[in-house]
């Protein structure tokens, strides 16, 4: 019996051991890989090393934006024995209070092995001093950090955009492309549009840490990869000049090479300084940018949809000539007003222009001529003109958030305003009023099309990305016109500037011929918008341009004077 009992005991004991062994087999062999991964996760940490962002240079290779090395003071938490003592030692050297240092440390602390930045933008002298005193200040580290600088400051604001910490929404979208929560990304302008090229690839240090997160040794190093350099078509000098030209005035100027669509200058005012977004001490300035009712963040050149006013007459004239609604010989008598039933529509020139053909009508910007022409075309004809010149659509310039404007039509009038389209609507439509709106870049596109015999290149800023030319990537559209159509329209536009009775005669310059069209658009309350769009020289144009002054007066006055100065500078630079 005892033997049986011992055998029973033996079975219990051995079965328990066998069960344990099966448990080990499962835990170590079957689940081994899983636990191996967990063990690695336990001990391996990544310290990201930021890559410097690609520079942006102008058409001549002169840098507009670049990452410069700036010094910052950081500390290794695991090597600091007494933080409060260290703050007291550092405070006088870096000219910060001990509280500021302590706050920066608390805010930046991630792990014992990860350096915490205490002071950004150290003056070089301080950086060297700290480097010398390193042995007395254990755990401190002065390191060069790439810092983005917008060399032309505010003049490039809306074109370049600015950098900011990635938002939650952007992160969900961009995570698959390797973006992380600590990344700065382009928030507008070229910085946003070309962010994937500019940003480069962050490197990293792989470190092994112990249970308290202190670095034991360095395991791997992946050097950060600089972002790619982007060459844009802008001319830095011209850009700055145009920026100064607008000065306190709200508005936009765009200058383009009409054959290629390369933008030489694109400014919007008021503007903002992108450097402010990267400087913690300028956060109040940034807050003002974001809150200001003047909307400095708003790129008027490509987003502002406003009535084009008389500049639109160029499109109406071309369409009417092309469709045979008028010919070169068609005359309309301008008595200063146009009667339609019981309503009276005025020309801007009360005494009246007398008999006008299309060339004269453009020269004088005669409303009565275009009322008549508009009636012949009808709202559909005018709408077609607008559409074929690219109104109501994006020009596809390589900048984010481009506006599209609006082309009215009778059926829209019925739905939106519950009233039929009136004859009077057609008249205001024909002179670029009514509900018609367009962005400055769309107006520029219209004038480029005329200047280039119907050829519409896609406007663009980026020429090449680190040696890789982008030229072929841009589209060109061709509008077909009868030969005499463009001859007459261009003749009219040339007279706008060259004739002493032209509305744009203030832009007249000896030796620098230009063609164009002024516009003075009524827009709600306040002063009218002033437009001047055109190209130079009239034969074989080298530049096309648009000047838009938001509530800035008259196209023939304020805008024309700006164009005049601009032409002088363009001549100086050799563009015309």
């Amino acid at each position: 019996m005892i033997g049986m009992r011992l055998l029973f005991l033996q079975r219990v004991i051995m079965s328990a051991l066998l069960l344990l062994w099966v448990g080990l087999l499962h835990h170590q062999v079957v689940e081994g890989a899983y636990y191996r991964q967990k063990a690695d996760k336990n001990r391996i940490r990544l310290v990201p090393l930021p890559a410097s962002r690609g520079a942006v240079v102008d058409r001549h290779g002169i840098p507009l934006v670049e990452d410069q090395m700036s010094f910052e003071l950081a500390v290794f938490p695991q090597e600091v024995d007494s933080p409060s003592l260290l703050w007291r030692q550092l405070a006088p050297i870096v000219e910060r209070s001990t509280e500021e240092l302590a706050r920066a440390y608390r805010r930046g602390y991630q792990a014992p092995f990860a350096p915490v930045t205490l002071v950004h933008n150290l003056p070089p002298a301080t950086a060297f001093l700290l480097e010398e005193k390193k042995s007395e200040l254990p755990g401190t580290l002065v390191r060069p950090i790439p810092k983005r600088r917008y060399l032309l400051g505010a003049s490039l604001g809306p074109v370049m955009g600015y950098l900011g910490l990635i938002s939650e929404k952007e992160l969900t979208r961009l995570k698959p492309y390797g973006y992380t929560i600590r990344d700065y990304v382009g928030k507008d302008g070229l910085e946003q549009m070309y962010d994937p090229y500019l940003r480069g690839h962050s490197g990293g240090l792989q470190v092994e840490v112990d249970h308290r997160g202190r670095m034991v040794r360095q395991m791997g190093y992946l050097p950060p990869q600089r972002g790619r350099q982007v060459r844009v078509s802008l001319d830095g000098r011209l850009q700055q000049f145009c920026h100064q030209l607008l000065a306190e005035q709200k508005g936009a100027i765009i200058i383009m090479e009409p054959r290629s669509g390369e933008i030489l200058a694109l400014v919007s005012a008021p503007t903002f300084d992108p450097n402010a977004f990267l400087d913690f001490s300028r956060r109040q300035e940034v807050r003002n940018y974001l809150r200001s009712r003047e909307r400095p963040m708003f790129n008027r050149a490509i987003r502002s949809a406003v009535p084009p006013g008389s500049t639109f007459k160029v499109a109406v004239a071309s369409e009417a000539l092309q469709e045979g609604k008028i010919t070169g010989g068609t005359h309309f008598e301008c008595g200063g007003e146009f009667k339609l039933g019981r309503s009276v529509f005025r020309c801007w020139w009360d005494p009246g222009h007398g008999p006008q053909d299309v060339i004269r009508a453009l020269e004088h910007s005669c409303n009565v001529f275009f009322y008549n022409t508009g009636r012949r075309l009808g709202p559909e004809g005018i709408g077609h003109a607008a559409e074929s010149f690219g109104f109501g659509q994006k020009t596809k310039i390589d900048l984010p958030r481009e506006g599209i404007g609006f082309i009215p039509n009778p059926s829209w009038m019925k739905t939106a305003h519950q009233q039929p389209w009136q004859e009077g609507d057609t008249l205001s439509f024909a002179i670029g009023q009514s509900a018609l709106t367009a962005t400055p870049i769309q107006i520029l596109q219209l004038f480029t099309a005329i200047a280039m015999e119907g050829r519409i290149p896609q406007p663009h800023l980026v020429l090449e990305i680190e040696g890789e030319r982008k030229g072929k990537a841009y589209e060109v559209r061709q509008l077909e016109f009868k030969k005499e159509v463009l001859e007459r329209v261009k003749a009219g536009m040339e007279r706008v500037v060259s004739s002493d009775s032209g509305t744009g005669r203030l832009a007249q310059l000896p030796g620098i011929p230009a063609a164009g069209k002024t516009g003075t658009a009524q827009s709600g309350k306040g002063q009218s918008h002033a437009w001047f769009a055109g190209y130079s020289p009239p034969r074989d144009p080298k530049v096309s341009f648009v000047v838009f002054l938001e509530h800035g007066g008259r196209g023939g006055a304020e805008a024309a004077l700006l164009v005049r100065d601009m032409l002088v500078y363009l001549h100086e630079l050799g563009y015309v």
Partner: protein
Amino acid sequence: MLTWRQLRGIDRPTLFITAALLGIGLLILYSASFQKAQQMGVSYLHRQMVWAAMGALIAVVLVSIDYHRWLEWAYVAYGLNMLLLILVLELGVVRGGAQRWLSVGGLTIQPSEFAKITTALVLARYLGSQRDTAGSGWKQLFGAGLLAGLPMVLILKEPNLGTASSFIPMTLAMLLVWGIRMKVLWLVVGTGIALVPVLWNFLADYQRSRLMVFLNPNLDPLGAGYTVVQSKVAIGSGGWWGKGWFGGTQNQLNFLPERHTDFIFSIVGEEWGFVGTTVCLALFAALFYRALLIATQTRDPFGRLLIVGLMTILWFHVIVNIGMTMGLMPVVGLPLPFLSYGGSWTLTCLVAIGVILSVGVRRPLYS
């Protein structure tokens, strides 16, 4: 005293297994405590070697003297040990919230470890002298229960749930081999299991939380569950072959607390892999097999009971300790025989081996 003939009949496999387990224990302790030794100037390895040598010496004494002598003194030893346990509660050293140690001279000893031996001794003496196996055995069950219950209550008060619970399988195994009716035994086991929820109410908060965390270590991965989580990762990440001696990242980077004592087996698993753990388990299985063989061969009921009691208590430690490192058992603080660092514990294990061998050399050799 021992005759030459008897000495030649000593169970060599048991000797070999014990030496092998002690050797493995020292090697892995070296890897587990090397850093601590450097930082604090305390060499766990050297201390453990001293304890092992002392234990071996005691084992030699135990083998050479007839174990019946010890049985004669069983009640006295048991009584003294109980006094020590009471002393622990009165003026013991508190470590980690528990009062388990007595300071004697420069040494701290854990009387609860020795109670495992003296209780086995007293139970063997008591049950061995109860020759009436024809009865139902209720009386003997009651008597054994009292003898085992006293140290259990004293140890529970320290508090030390693990050690206290290890008396249960020992007593049951001894009753089984003594010859208690199976019906009675099953009834006791069944009632015990049914009483678990009642006992739950008697547990201290930390003991309950340990049991809760045992059921789900992720309840508290940084607190009570931390050790289990890290231990599971350590063992599991060892895979087939392990990361190599001194190559365990969980070990060397300090992710595993208490790794030189209760969690030494995690390091075996991490650095020597499934192969290493299998070797250890096989050695334990062989040890218990040899012990049971000796128990079968001896004709002395006292000797048989003694072996069964001591072996069961070692076995229980192996099962609970290894199960605990894998998260299969609650963390109750039972060390692993021969591998875990600890003076009292190492001595206890070697005394057990000494007694087993002592019975072994005196068994009839002609069978």
